């Protein structure tokens, strides 16, 4: 049988896993994707028979952190199955070939899997100055993106840089970085923001495409609803303390250890949509809030430029303290006294 035509089940068998272990993984997967239990037999059938997905992974202005996150995703597929199943036809960091051969293999893969392959983009794109700030094999990144996007079955922008522009996009944005979706007008792009995004989410979205053959359901910002439908705040295990009005006062104080809410320390959970609080990181071990650090809001657009990392959400950005209050009251009082003086003068009489 042709190597690329292997299904997920074939891979499990070859690696010596039992069927039971295969079914457990699928159960986890369908639960993560939010499929109803009635769909379970279909999911099993699809993963037994459908060939593994072909993935072309492009990296532009990035740090490879998303890749790191992706290859460390172990809660759904076992480590040794993951990279064999998600067949990375082209990935600059992970693939063996280099230089001319690498570019050739990409071209080959695009032709071979045209219309079916999944294009994953990591990092923002820089079309400014004809793309001189990021070129691969003599081609500008924007050009490369257009080339690969043309025949893709599904385009996934992985990470905040690809989804929103991220850190390269931050002020003053010297390279003119933009989000992937900005350059691919008219094409549906699945944004999986986060810095980095949760690896399990990337794996689930890719696997989900093999099962249904369709992109997942997206919200208005192009994020899969299954993972970005709720805020961290909504699912946070410290939420009861927020509701009860109990807050940690400083990092790792007695209250923080007791699990009190980190809102006062600047937690952006209430306005950050992500699955950190449910799926968590490192195989469901923990997530930032659990380890005592407030949510950064890294999966929200422009998080880097908003600059209020450790101030509570509700306070005035730019600051309005006792000084400002006193200043405005003093000015107001002076104006009031002046007005009263004028009024008195104009009053005359007694």
């Amino acid at each position: 049988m042709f190597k690329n035509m292997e299904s997920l089940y074939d891979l499990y068998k070859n690696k010596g896993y039992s069927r039971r272990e295969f079914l457990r993984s699928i159960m986890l997967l369908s639960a993560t994707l939010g499929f109803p239990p009635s769909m379970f037999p279909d999911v099993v059938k699809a993963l037994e028979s459908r060939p593994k997905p072909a993935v072309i992974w492009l990296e532009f202005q990035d740090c490879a952190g998303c890749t790191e996150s992706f290859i460390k995703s172990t809660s759904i597929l076992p480590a040794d199955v993951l990279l064999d199943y998600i067949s990375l036809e082209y990935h600059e960091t992970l693939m063996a070939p280099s230089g001319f051969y690498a570019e050739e293999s990409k071209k080959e893969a695009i032709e071979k899997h045209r219309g079916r392959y999944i294009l994953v983009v990591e990092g923002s794109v820089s079309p400014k100055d004809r793309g001189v700030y990021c070129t691969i094999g003599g081609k500008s990144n924007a050009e490369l993106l257009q080339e690969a996007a043309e025949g893709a079955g599904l385009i996934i922008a992985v990470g905040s840089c690809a989804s929103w522009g991220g850190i390269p996009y931050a002020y003053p944005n010297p390279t003119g970085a933009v989000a992937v979706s900005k350059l691919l007008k008219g094409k549906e792009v699945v944004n999986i923001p986060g810095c980095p995004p949760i690896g399990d989410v990337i794996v689930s979205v890719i696997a989900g495409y093999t099962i249904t053959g369709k992109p997942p359901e997206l919200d208005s910002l192009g994020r899969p609803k299954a993972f970005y439908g709720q805020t961290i705040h909504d699912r946070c295990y410290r939420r009861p303390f927020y509701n009860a009005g109990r807050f940690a006062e400083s990092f790792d104080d007695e209250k923080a250890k007791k699990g009190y809410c980190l809102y006062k320390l600047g937690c952006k959970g209430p306005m950050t949509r992500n699955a950190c609080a449910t799926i968590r990181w490192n195989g469901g071990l923990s997530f930032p809030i659990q380890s005592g650090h407030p949510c950064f809001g890294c999966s929200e657009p422009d998080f880097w430029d908003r600059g209020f990392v450790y101030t509570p959400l509700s306070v005035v950005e730019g600051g309005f303290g006792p000084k400002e209050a006193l200043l405005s009251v003093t000015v107001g009082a002076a104006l009031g006294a002046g007005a009263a003086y004028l009024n008195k003068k104009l009053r005359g009489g007694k």
Partner: protein
Amino acid sequence: MDVALYDFVRGPFLRFALFVFFLGIAYRFFRVVFLGLPPDYARPKGNPYYMAVKKILIKPTMGWTFNEIFSRRAVNYVGGFLFHLGFIGLTFLVPAHALLWQEITGLPMPTMPNIISDILAYAALGSLVVLTVHRALNPVLKLLTGKDEYFANFLIAIVLFTGLLATRWAGSGYVWLLSLHMLLADLLIIYIPFSRLSHFIYYFLSVGFMGWNAGKRGVSF
């Protein structure tokens, strides 16, 4: 987009609103204070200063002893009480608001649990609606009411409503609702010094004078 609006309403716009609020309130208060008073040489029968402070502290409890007025205007009494309790409680003690006040005053502020703020919000919103309807139907209030009252009631109601929606029923529209809530709250903060909503600052003057007169005349009420 929603985040940009959010950043605007909690950043520069809120800053601007607070400047307008503090400046305007101080202006209105001191414009009245510095008009001056004629001296009063009549020997007081009681202690005017003590009474002035006392009345400022306990005035809201005094009207309740008027049984016959209460029986006719229970709506005003109960509704007004619930509304003020809710509005003041929500303004100062909801965690998010308390942190804002903490930043403004530089003093630690207590916060209250969600369950209480929810009850207060429902109470305030409900009583505000009832009070507005009452205002529109009662012949006396019809005569006294201008556009200002209706606009202020509407603005406060919608601020309360969006706040309640944002904390309770937002779903995926959370940031939008929160931004809307804050935008309207900013507008309300700006509107206060220009309207009769600034009565809270005149309360101290007006009730203070009333207590002063009561002390001067030696009456307890």
